[in-house]
């Protein structure tokens, strides 16, 4: 064989060994051709997952590559010049303390471990699914913190707890890998709304400072046009559904493995209410305002509510005269001091809800 022929033959032979890359028929990643290595999983059991392991993906930055915050500095609203009135925040209130956790901070850190009043809370936020959820940091009577595992399931955040290194699914609200597999998340009620509305609700609020100890450009959204581009889903997800645009912000109310979806836009300008009953007989109320940009849901005991206008944070009143704030707390009336039972619910992008809760019914309007 001539040298030239030899060289070409080597290249062609090797090239022909490569799969040309025919698309797979589903969202299931193919069986990997060979493993890499490292200590990526820490102490977590490497293969014992409650969800299909093949659908758990590495997001790129790696474990703690996106650094969670611990007890970040809080500042007065007047000092928060980095926030615009329409910027979204995740708000939390406990023992008279109100704290706003802006998306502008959460986009870069995804988890903020904090203590508000006596509550040990972790604000978990996934920029790819648009879901901000409050989690209790007390697990089995021990206080812990959560970190960003760097893993994604259905393109959604998988936090890990630093007590056991177990991995949790943010949207499923349970532990999916590790020592605590199967444990449920204890959620803490949060309100996601605009910075302007949150200040209207809680003028004495504090807000997280950009002085986080990490060097980041908090004025820049790190995901380009992701928030508004309905075609841009960075990682594979299950159950694509086009009944609504993928990035519409919707409130989902969860009952078991089912959910019902309420687009934030259906609530119009003034606060509107929807009272519903799950098939199992659990009744709940959904309240929201498109203009003020919030939507919340609470379990009820069969009361009948009507909206309260222009009195934030009070949003509704029952037939007994009790007035409820946006966290479901009775702030005046015969049952003052009590609160509605929480029900698992949070705001997220529509596509993410369909990925986790396929064929969820949607409420397209309020009569």
């Amino acid at each position, binding site marked *: 064989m001539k040298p030239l022929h030899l*060289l070409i033959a080597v290249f062609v032979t090797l090239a022909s060994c490569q799969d040309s890359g025919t698309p797979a028929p589903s969202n299931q990643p193919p069986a990997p051709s060979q*493993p890499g290595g490292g200590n990526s999983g820490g102490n977590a059991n490497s293969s014992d997952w409650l969800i299909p392991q093949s659908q758990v993906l590495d997001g790129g930055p*790696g474990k703690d590559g996106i650094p969670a915050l611990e007890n970040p500095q809080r500042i007065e609203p007047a000092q928060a010049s980095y926030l615009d009135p329409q910027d979204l925040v995740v708000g939390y209130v406990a023992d008279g303390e109100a704290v706003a956790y802006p998306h502008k901070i959460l986009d870069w850190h995804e988890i903020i471990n904090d203590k508000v009043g006596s509550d040990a809370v972790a604000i978990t936020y996934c920029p790819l699914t648009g879901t901000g959820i409050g989690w209790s940091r007390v697990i089995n009577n021990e206080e812990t913190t959560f970190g960003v595992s760097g893993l994604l399931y259905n393109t959604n955040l998988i936090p890990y707890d630093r007590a056991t290194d177990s991995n949790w699914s943010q949207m499923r609200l349970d532990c999916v890998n590790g020592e605590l597999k199967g444990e449920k998340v204890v959620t803490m009620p949060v309100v996601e709304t605009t910075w302007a509305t949150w200040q209207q609700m809680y003028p004495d609020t504090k807000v997280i400072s950009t002085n986080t100890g990490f060097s980041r450009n908090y004025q820049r959204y790190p*995901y*380009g046009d992701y928030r508004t581009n309905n075609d841009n889903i960075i990682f594979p997800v299950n159950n694509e559904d086009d009944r609504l645009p993928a990035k519409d912000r919707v409130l989902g109310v969860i009952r078991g493995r089912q959910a019902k979806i309420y687009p934030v836009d259906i609530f119009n300008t003034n606060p509107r209410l929807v009272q519903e009953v799950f098939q199992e007989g659990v009744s709940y109320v959904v309240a929201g305002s498109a203009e003020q940009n919030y939507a919340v849901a609470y379990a009820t005991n069969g009361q009948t509510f009507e909206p309260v206008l222009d009195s934030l944070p009070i949003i509704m009143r029952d037939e007994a005269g009790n007035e409820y704030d946006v966290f479901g707390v009775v702030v005046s009336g015969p049952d003052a001091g009590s609160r509605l039972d929480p029900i698992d619910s949070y705001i997220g992008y529509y596509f993410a809800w369909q990925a986790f809760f396929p064929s969820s019914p949607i409420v397209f309007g309020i009569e």
Partner: protein
Amino acid sequence: MNYLLAVITLTLTAHAAWAQCCSGGVPMSGNIGLPASDAGSWQWMLSYDVNVLRTLKDANNTLDDDTRERLTRSGLFQMGYAISSRWALDAFFSFVRQERTIRQIGFSENFTFTQGIGDATLLVKFKAATLNEGKGEWWVAAGPKAPLGASDLTDDRGITLVADLQPGSGAWDGVLWTQLSHQISWRPSLSFSSRIIARLTGKNNNYLGSQVYEFGDEGQVMASLSDQVLLGRLLLNPGVTTRLRHAGRDRTNGEFVPNSGGTFLFIAPSLGLQLTPDLSLQSRVDLPVYTQVDGTQLAPTYRVNVGVLFRLNRTKSFSPEITPLFENK
């Protein structure tokens, strides 16, 4: 004699133009293109390349954060055959190890790697012109980059890793290459060369099982100055290269991947040692002098490349006219 000197000089100058493909990905397009050689001769180039990324950039601002590090270590093998004085063929193969380390204060270090055969490139080269009575040459080349490397490797838990951490791209690319080189008339051992490389990327249609991934197209412009000097009995080839590289943003399913792509300017001093007429050692360090990334990314901090070049079947003798660095009297 002058022709041979030019070839030798250009040979060594060309090696000063090593580069990288993307911020952390497969080191391919900048490395391709063996030096010109005599008709009928073979060349083998074996090199080790490590690209260290630990500078966190937001656009062109350096962030005060050294908690993350990405390394791409590559073993590169290039073989070339000169069909005639005008036509040559190069084939480029790689073994790639991708590493990611995260060191957050107060937490244990997290380390992930993949390794395996990387992608390969075949380049058909043509000497388009001989310039100025043999003192310069203009070569053009084109060829495919074949996706030999795996693009679906996992970490130690079996979790599939992203495209940037894979040894292969999973896509067929097209590579265009051209080089213009010329001796400096007042110092025959000194030569200038410039090189332009374009990589037109294809699509990995099987990324994460159901997605289409496409690395950004890439262009590089390099300008090199290289000399030959005698240091005692050592024949050395010092050189310096400036390299401007632009990488477009990656795409997933046609949509831009955030925090990918950028423009980089490097200065790269190099040093070669001619052991025998057919055997030389090469070394080079790439240092970034300007970086502008899209969004926030780990950017190159430095890059080191060392290699050995062996040639066979030379048809002419080796007797360069060199300029001693120091006169031995």
